[in-house]
């Protein structure tokens, strides 16, 4: 710890108190500014998006030039792509976390954790380029390629969240099970994992909330799609973030309205999921650590 230097002089006390107060006000203002910016952004989306909400919006697919449409096809496409990405990422993320907490030696565990953190820091657009080079070149765009790209973004988040809750499991639980003669794998799957499902779900929901809004990887893997609700995942499907991206740059007020309303749908989904996940996480942590 660095040397702590405070001279107590009553003569300078008033000045120090003033400095203290000023800085406290500054800190409060900063926090207020952040919350205000959040309010402004969400407020804009809510007001501009809410004013053009209509049933058509949710039931019609993307329209043509000058013909207003909706985002029905984008909602379906996003749901499919994110859903498949989750199905890919959760097993892999959980397995990696189990490896790190149950099997890996300290050196290997550190190494894998470093790699996971590196993976977390790879820009989404670079992931998009990678998946484009591997899955799209020569084959064409597809929703599956988009899912693969999103799952690459999700795995480190799910692995880290799972690992954190696995670490909270009291060692005694494992020991008791092993002492009773239960094999390792049954211990992990049947004793340890069930206690941390809450944490895994939380991590997954947070990861889903994050990738639901990712645009860059989808630009490369699923951006040339039909104007209709389509369930075929071997083709490119329209998605909400790409729709927002395209409409946001338009001059047509109808398309701008579509952008705002799509943004409202997306942001509602993301915020509600995030808040729910945090509430769930707080609750399951309390359960695991005995109310601490």
């Amino acid at each position: 710890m660095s040397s702590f230097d405070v001279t107590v002089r009553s003569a300078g006390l008033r000045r120090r108190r003033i400095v203290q107060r000023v800085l406290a006000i500054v800190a409060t203002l900063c926090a207020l500014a952040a919350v205000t910016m959040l309010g402004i952004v969400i407020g804009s989306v809510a007001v501009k998006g809410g004013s053009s909400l209509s049933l058509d919006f949710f039931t019609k697919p993307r329209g043509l030039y000058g013909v207003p449409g909706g985002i029905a096809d984008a909602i379906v496409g996003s749901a499919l792509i994110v859903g498949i990405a989750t199905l890919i990422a959760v097993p892999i993320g959980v397995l990696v976390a189990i490896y790190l907490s149950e099997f890996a030696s300290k050196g290997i565990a550190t190494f894998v954790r470093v790699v996971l953190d590196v993976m977390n820091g790879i820009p989404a657009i670079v992931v998009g380029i990678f998946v484009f080079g591997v899955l799209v070149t020569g084959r064409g765009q597809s929703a599956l390629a988009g899912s693969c790209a999103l799952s690459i973004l999700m795995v480190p988040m799910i692995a880290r969240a799972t690992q954190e809750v696995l670490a909270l499991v009291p060692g005694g639980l494992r020991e008791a099970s092993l002492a009773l003669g239960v094999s390792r794998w049954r211990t992990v799957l049947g004793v340890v994992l069930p206690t941390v499902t809450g944490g895994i779900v939380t991590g997954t929901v947070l990861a889903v909330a994050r990738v639901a809004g990712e645009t860059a990887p989808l630009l490369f893997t699923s951006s040339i799609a039909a104007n209709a609700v389509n369930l075929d995942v071997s083709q490119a499907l329209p998605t909400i973030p790409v729709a927002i991206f395209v409409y946001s740059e338009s001059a047509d007020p109808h398309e701008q309205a579509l952008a705002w309303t799509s943004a409202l749908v997306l942001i509602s989904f993301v915020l509600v999921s995030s808040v729910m996940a945090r509430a769930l996480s707080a609750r399951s942590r309390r359960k695991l650590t005995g109310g601490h």
Partner: protein
Amino acid sequence: MKKTALLIAALTCATVSLAAAGVSGAASDGGSKATAGTLTGAGATFPFPLISKWIPAYDQASGTQVNYSPIGSGGGIAAITARTVDFGASDAPLSPDQFTACKGCVQIPWALSATAVIYNIPGAPQGLRLTPALIAQMYLGSVTKWNAPGIKKLNPGVNLPDLKITPVYRSDGSGTSYNFTDFLTKTSPTWKDKVGTGTSVSWPTGVGARGSAGVTGVVTRTDGGITYADVAYALTNKLKFARVQNQAKKFTLPGLRSINAAASSVGKVTGNGEISIVNPAKSQPLAYPISTFTYALAPTASPKADELRKFIYWAITSGQKFGPALLFAPLPKQVLAFDYKQIKKIQAST
């Protein structure tokens, strides 16, 4: 324990079967990118207003659903080269290198319109007079204010404010950029030297945006902005566009008559079908100098050859009736004759 294991097993099965369904779906189609009765295309934003009229009309006429993604001519060329789509669309003709890379593509001019020079000057009227030299200077950054003497001289009686000129250009690979820069290259030696012609160039100054929609969007929000886009975008968004001086020294607006005049100089179409009608000779005093054909790009060997031939044939014949309302002029006879021959080259792949 059993429950968790079952859950994991179920999840894995679900993933696998979903993926299998997707893959088998693609395999049973013989590698084509959509179910039968649909055509997927992508490319230029320039003809998108017209293609948007074609799609429902053709669906009614033939039952084939056409899907089109306006991602820019560059994107269209890339997509058809990679065979990601059934057809591409580009306002920029393919270069010899691009033809080689496309491995057997035909280029079919299927619509004819003009690039409008769109501006947003509060208080200024429609049809401001501009010369090619001035437009080049604006985009080169040597003329920076709307009340520059050169502009004022051309437009006596117009109250031009002391407002900065913001040139707006296409940041994506754009055939409209190609048309516009082609025009500037042929009319301004400085432009030809410094910048040149292309779907993507090194713009000396200004702000970029994606798509015809993007550039018109920026100009609507920027006082003093100027950009270039298919005239249909100017009409739909109620933007003002300029009278541009042609080689006969006349200032013309993009319109059916002026576009036809520009296209009337086209002789017999040969080779790859590349037709340039920018800056026509002074024998066409009515011509609008930034007119252009726009092309469909189709593979000579395609699993959808039949549908492609039918669609493109319909587009250049019955489809043309939707053009005039959007300022797309009808294709000249010699271009049609060329197109019929090109369409025949689209054959079914084995």
